[in-house]
């Protein structure tokens, strides 16, 4: 498994986690895997939508004790 860039968005509310994700996507090279942690209830739906629209790949999305972990591979 590729080394992932971690992004801690715990405690952030919509739209902050998605903004942070978009910023990280701009900072990192295409194909990078981002591991995003978030506890916003909207995150599950939003991260799926973000990946679909930006053509990123959502490799995994899991939840434990109310905290979501998303593995997102940037397009390209």
């Amino acid at each position, binding site marked *: 498994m590729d080394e992932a860039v971690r992004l801690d968005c715990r405690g952030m*509310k*919509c739209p902050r*986690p*998605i903004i942070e994700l978009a910023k990280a996507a701009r900072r990192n090279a295409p194909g990078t895997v981002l591991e995003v942690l978030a506890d916003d*209830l*909207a995150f599950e*739906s*939003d991260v*799926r*939508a973000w990946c679909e629209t930006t053509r990123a790949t959502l490799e995994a999305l899991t939840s434990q004790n109310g905290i979501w972990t998303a593995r997102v591979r940037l397009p390209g």
Partner: protein
Amino acid sequence: MSAASRPENALDAIERRLAEVEAGLRTLSERLEARLPPERVCLICFSGDWDRLFAALTIAHGALALGQEVHLFFTFWGVSALRAEGDDECEGPPQSLLQRLMHRMLPKGPLGTRLSRMHFWGLGRTMMQRLMRQHGVDDVDVLLREVRELGGKVHLCETSALLLGIRKEDLAQPEDIDRCGVATFMSLALRSRLVLFV
């Protein structure tokens, strides 16, 4: 007479050219069709006013009747319309004083919403209800229920709900509500025929 100038050869050339043009047009139209957004309508129910809610739900009905996929995004004051009618206090995680205050002051469900004008401390609302009954016009609770029955999808802005002290326990039919954020809305809105802010 040269071969190319013979009438049957010229006709062949024209037919070949026509077939090429036809094939080109077919590819072009396929490509254009692929770019057309799906038959989808997104409505942003921002206002918690009864009249605006009525308008949004009526439009949703029209869109569903015309075979469109309909998405209703309830955000900010609009969130109140998704509350269950009735009881003020219900089970759920504890809230801060401010959240409890918001929770208490906001309308409870679609029928608790106010007219944006001529409300007259509820008198206008009663008047409107009487008129609607007289003329057989459905009220917003019926419209909302039917929109959902007809397959209209209801989304709730998670952050608004949090700010207004509206928890999952306060919602009517919470299992059918997608609690989402702006990215979900945007991804659908970008691929819609129509987006309205109500």
